[in-house]
């Protein structure tokens, strides 16, 4: 008993001393503990629908203040076996599909780097489908309080269990990077108050090509997701209770949403030179629904003045199909905000979003018949790394 207590105390002291170090999870330390987190507060003026950060959140921020949507904590353990092999494990606690802050294993992989031009990883990996999508919970890494909802809020998966390979090839002073990945995943998204879609994605594969030229970083990417989607909720029960011959609730909903096969294309450009950072992207996702498409675009720019970085962003999302229905989304967002770097590991952010929702689809949580309108969302964030 005494011994266990000593071991426990020793471990606690070791963790505390690791955590007390400044942020430098670098190559020299064999074992590194690091982490990131956000304390977020959101104020919305929308009394009809709740603002969501992403569609994995069953509830959002209603009228007034809420700390639910953006607050999160992540911890990461890295173990470098030798210069070529290492292991990374990461967990994140955030408000997600379980309806609480239950921690989730977000990364767990082994990495092999036989050469600076080649990297192989296997295990649980972030879903690197769009530029920045695999670091979308690391608030300290970007200027906004949260990545723009019109692009990143509709992403269906957060991680894949599989493998990826990255090749790098310099061309003069430019650099080409090719990444290919494949795996499987599962996730749950809340389409409506009365409808849940559980993705059992047995094949997720794709890749992207990056071209880096001076301050420019251009990306083109393509991903396919093949899933067995399990729909549930009162809506399905209602359809099934009609007991009409040949009418099956799940099949009916799948024909409307067409989530069983997704093909995601994306073009991204990042310009990062000294104090100026500009990001642009256009994305198109095709669904199995009749010529179903999810289109989105983003333009964001920030300029650092000393410790303060004001930024602006405009984004848009629109879904379309030859058979329009009430799951369709049409929304524009204008964002104005500022990031204040209090220290080299803490940033404070204030952001104002003016959102023009023409069709809310499943981007907002509502149990009323809200058909859209203007909303103002004010957010405060404190992001840190350790």
């Amino acid at each position, binding site marked *: 008993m005494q011994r266990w207590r000593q071991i426990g105390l020793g471990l606690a002291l070791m963790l505390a001393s690791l955590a007390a170090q400044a*942020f*430098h*999870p*670098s*190559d*020299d330390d064999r074992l590194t503990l*690091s982490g*990131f987190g956000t304390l977020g507060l959101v104020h919305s003026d929308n009394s009809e629908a709740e603002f969501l950060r992403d569609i994995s959140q069953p509830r959002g921020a209603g009228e007034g203040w809420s700390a639910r949507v953006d607050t999160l904590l*992540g911890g*990461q353990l*890295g173990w470098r076996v030798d*210069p070529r092999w290492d292991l*990374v494990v*990461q967990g994140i606690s955030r408000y997600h599909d379980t309806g609480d802050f239950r921690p989730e294993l977000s*990364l767990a*992989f082994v*990495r092999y780097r036989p*050469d*600076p*031009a080649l990297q192989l*990883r296997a295990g649980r*990996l*972030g879903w*690197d489908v769009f530029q*920045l999508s*695999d*670091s979308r*919970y*690391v608030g*300290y*890494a*970007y200027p906004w309080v949260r990545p723009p909802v019109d692009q990143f809020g509709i992403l269906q998966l957060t991680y894949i269990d599989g493998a990826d390979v990255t090749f*790098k090839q*310099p061309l003069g*002073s430019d*650099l080409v990077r090719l990444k290919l990945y494949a795996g499987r995943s599962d996730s749950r998204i809340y389409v409506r108050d009365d409808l849940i879609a559980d993705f059992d994605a047995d094949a997720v594969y794709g890749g992207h090509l990056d071209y*880096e030229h*001076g301050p420019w970083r251009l990306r083109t990417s393509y991903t396919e997701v093949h899933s067995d989607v399990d729909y549930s909720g009162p809506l399905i029960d209602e359809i099934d209770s009609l007991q009409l011959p040949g009418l099956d609730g799940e099949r009916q909903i799948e024909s409307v949403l067409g989530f069983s096969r997704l093909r995601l294309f994306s073009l991204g450009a990042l310009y990062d*030179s*000294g*104090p100026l950072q500009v990001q642009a992207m256009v994305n198109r996702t095709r669904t199995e629904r009749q010529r179903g498409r999810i289109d989105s675009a983003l333009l964001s720019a920030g300029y*650092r003045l000393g*410790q303060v970085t004001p930024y602006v962003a405009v984004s848009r999302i629109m879904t379309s199909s030859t058979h329009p229905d009430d799951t369709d989304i049409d929304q524009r967002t204008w964002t104005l905000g500022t990031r204040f*770097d209090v*220290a*080299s*590991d803490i*940033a404070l952010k204030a952001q104002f979003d003016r959102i023009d929702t023409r069709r809310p689809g499943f981007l907002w949580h509502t149990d009323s018949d809200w058909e859209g309108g203007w909303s103002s969302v004010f957010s405060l964030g404190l992001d840190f*790394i350790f």
Partner: protein
Amino acid sequence: MIRVRCCLLVALLSLVMPAMADIAIVVNTGSGVSHLTRSDAVNIFMGRYRKLPSGNPALPLDVAPFKARFYRALVNKNLAEINSYWARLVFSGENSPPQQVATVDEMRQIVTSNPGAVGYLDSREVSPDLHVVLILSE
């Protein structure tokens, strides 16, 4: 007259401003690398491509006393921005920042014993056991 005034201004500034030397990027004298371009240095320190022109893998070192000046001179970014850049790569499991060393002596020790190591220091402090591959003017 204008020229005289300019000269006076320059003279005055040079009196007021402390003499600032440049930052020298250094490698092992036996590394087989004669010089690096600025984009080589960016590739190595920002983790884009860590290979030396000699073909050896590069092992970049961040030297605490000069870190802020170094990144200001290399990419015109402050340490918060550099940390923010690495936060994205570290927490997506894509890459790791350079090895952090606390003193110039520690850096000197690693560079003189490792042909792939790349460090930096104030150009006035360069000793003969280090080979300068690039000077970043401030």
